[in-house]
């Protein structure tokens, strides 16, 4: 397969996730378990013989969903409600989720009402990460989830199968992280769009099939010498449950930005942490859940041991980024809460950043382009000034 053909395969799954899952179900006869982002461990559903699929915001205009949720909700939430109302989730065998973002909870109630014959189960993950009982509570939650899955499939989930799923998922994360390393080092030219479809497709595809394609991609990339690029090195931050619009990513690069790293959920955040492959799988998953927040801090959690703003400043340095673009989904409350901390820290350190608020309905794209062009020009001048001063 050529590089282009491999990317096309990833793109089909990333852009049509439900169609891709439906096709997998038809071909393989497995159950499909949908989940809401961002901390649901797909490993357990996989060990139960199911295809875990992280439900995505789609590109469709929100129509019937407007009759079930107010417009002052984030695009992901409104899109999920809209998809449920249109019957897009009818083929799912279950929807299981653990995050309790208030807007997602609103969507969950609607989804359950619209899918009366589907298991819509909630296993609430503790979001306060540094309490004495955080680890134990996370394990209890994963145990409840495991029992819920077992009830659905009608038999216990084999421990060795869970270990195998953990190994498979770890391998997937490791392969994707390798691509990040290559891009960061300038050894591979991977655009922001390509990186997104690589990670997003991992959220919806069978992991073994995804690993196979990733292996082929890496082999092709290693054969090719990366052409050095000119432009401002940009770090992308933010956007949790929903993937940024491809048009926005392309526009940033068209304006002269080279996206070298990110902490996006459809990016580093999703693949940051591996699960311990030894010992009790539930212990390992609980530990993974807490460690993940230390690796890439998430504003949807509260954690006295993690500072997102410091993480971002360090990540900028590691990736030698010249500036950061913050992509904030409109109405995303955790992001709105945390943003002033980032703003303050970046201004104090003199690191340039630009905040872009995004919406499901992408408006005033040209206005956005002007802002990005101006920002990159500022970054360029600041970088030049720093070089002269040095």
């Amino acid at each position, binding site marked *: 397969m050529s590089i282009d053909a491999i990317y096309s395969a990833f793109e089909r799954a990333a852009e049509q996730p439900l169609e891709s899952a439906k096709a997998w179900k038809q071909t393989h006869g497995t159950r499909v378990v949908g989940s809401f982002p961002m901390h649901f461990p797909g490993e357990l559903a996989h060990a139960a013989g199911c295809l875990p699929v992280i439900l995505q915001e789609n590109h469709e205009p929100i129509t019937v969903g407007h009759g079930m*949720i107010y417009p*002052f909700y984030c695009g992901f939430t409104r899109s999920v409600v809209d998809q449920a109302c249109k019957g897009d989730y009818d083929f799912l065998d279950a929807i299981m989720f653990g995050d309790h973002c208030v807007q997602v909870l609103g969507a969950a109630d609607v989804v359950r009402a619209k899918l009366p014959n589907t298991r819509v189960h*909630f296993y609430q993950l*503790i979001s306060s990460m540094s309490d004495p009982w955080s680890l134990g509570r996370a394990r209890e939650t994963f145990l409840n989830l495991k029992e*819920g899955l077992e009830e659905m499939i009608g038999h216990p989930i084999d421990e060795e199968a869970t270990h195998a799923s953990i190994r498979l998922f770890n391998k997937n994360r490791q392969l994707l992280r390798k691509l990040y390393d290559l891009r960061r080092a300038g050894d591979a030219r991977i655009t922001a769009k390509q990186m997104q479809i690589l990670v997003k497709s991992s959220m919806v595809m069978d992991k073994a099939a995804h690993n196979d394609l990733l292996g082929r991609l890496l082999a092709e990339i290693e054969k090719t010498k990366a052409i050095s690029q000119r432009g401002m090195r940009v770090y992308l931050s933010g956007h949790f449950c929903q993937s940024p619009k491809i048009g926005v990513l392309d526009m940033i690069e068209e304006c002269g930005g080279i996206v070298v790293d990110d902490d996006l959920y459809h990016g580093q955040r999703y693949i940051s942490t591996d699960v311990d492959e030894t010992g009790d799988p539930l212990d390992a998953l609980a530990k993974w859940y807490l460690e993940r927040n230390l690796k890439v801090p998430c504003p949807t959690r*509260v954690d006295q041991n993690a500072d997102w703003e410091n993480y971002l400043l360090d990540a900028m340095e590691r990736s030698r980024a010249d500036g950061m673009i913050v992509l904030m989904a409109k109405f995303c*409350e955790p992001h709105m*809460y945390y943003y002033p901390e980032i703003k303050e820290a970046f201004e104090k350190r003199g690191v340039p950043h630009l905040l872009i608020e995004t919406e499901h309905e992408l408006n005033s794209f040209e206005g956005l382009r002007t802002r990005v062009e101006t920002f990159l020009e500022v970054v360029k001048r600041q970088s030049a000034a720093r070089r002269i001063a040095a």
Partner: protein
Amino acid sequence: MNAIAQPLKKANRLKTSSLNNKMVNDYWTDVFNAKAEGKLVCWYEGVAINPLMQAADIRWVHGEAWSALLAARNNEQEAQTAAEHRGYMKELCSYARTHIGCGVLAQNRGVEASGSSFSDALGAGKLGERIPAPDMFISAYPYCSTGQQWDEMLFRLFGKKVPIFNISVPWVWGNKPDAIYLGGTEFNEAKQYMVKQLRACTKFIEEQTGKKYNWDSLGEIMSYTKTAGRLRMEAMELCNAKPAPASFFDWTTSLAPVNFIPGGPGIVEYFEKTKAEIVQRIADNEGGIPQEKYRLFWDGIMNWNKIGWLANKFANYDANMVAGRYTHMGFWHEHESIDLNDPLEGMAVNYLVCPINLSAPLMIEQIIKLCKHYEIDGMVLHAARTCRAFSNPQYLIADAVQKRLGLPVAMIEGDMVDESFYKDELVNSRIEAMLESIEARKRVGIAA
């Protein structure tokens, strides 16, 4: 139906409300005097955990109550502007924005602000700036993720130096078929999890005060709280009388004694008097509005900038807002579950079934019961722009009461303490459309 053409009618507010105002002022006066009197101050949001602090002689600032007071006394603007200048966006919970804004102001305030009395600060229009800074935070937010994040941001705003304790309140969702209101495997597990955390919270409080936790005092406080909760529920239940002697707006005004006023004889006396006034009004056939033609239910949180305005608006439509989710499904409404010898479990029960923490199917059943008890003709759903916790299930609620009870509904947009989200003419037209619909139903003889 045109509001402008009608002579202005005003709500017949309960006379006992004035006692509530005095209690509120006395309480905030005590809070403002805390530092001078050597008392610790705890900032917290969410469920009414204040009895835990009161038993340890700590003074407390409930973020929502404080923001609501600022809005009701037209003192919210300075705090909201301070938050906005720091980068908090307008779409964030306005309670949180206002409260965090007070935190920002507290960081910036001059020496002259310390030791300011409540009345001086109110007189100067500086309430937001002069609230005593916290010595600790306790977070116990049901359902809404924003609550825990709000406390976390306050913790960070104060340089991560003020101790914080997080109580994680599980949402009552119901995976299992045995899930019912106040029961089922998951509810019982959630209750025990809450008790464990509340007990740990008393240890945290001990660490802050350096004193052994006073369980006897907690039992005594909860005995007043339980009695006040019972009297309030009894008084509200009497409002199924026609005309209803009080309105949702009266009960909203009366939330302070069951939300943040110290548990003591004062809160019991308040609801005794309130209940007596209700009984007397029923005997006198006196309604909460001059002329009751329609009986309505309010779903959603209160708009604190507009409480008097809305009370009079509905009175002017001859519409009595008889009950509401906010007032009737929370604030120690499950008082019977409180065992005074060991009150934590009963407290946990009340926190778990507060007006936002039930998933839609369980919540809707409770709302339907209330609509039947109070013989409701129509429902107003207040979509608070920045309170998704309350707004979340409203389409499902509207759908259920329309289909199961045939109630016309009106959805209106507003907010808790950000006045800019309220559009009066839109509200008027939606209420009038709903009242027309109730009229039409009455004409064909199908209204309650």
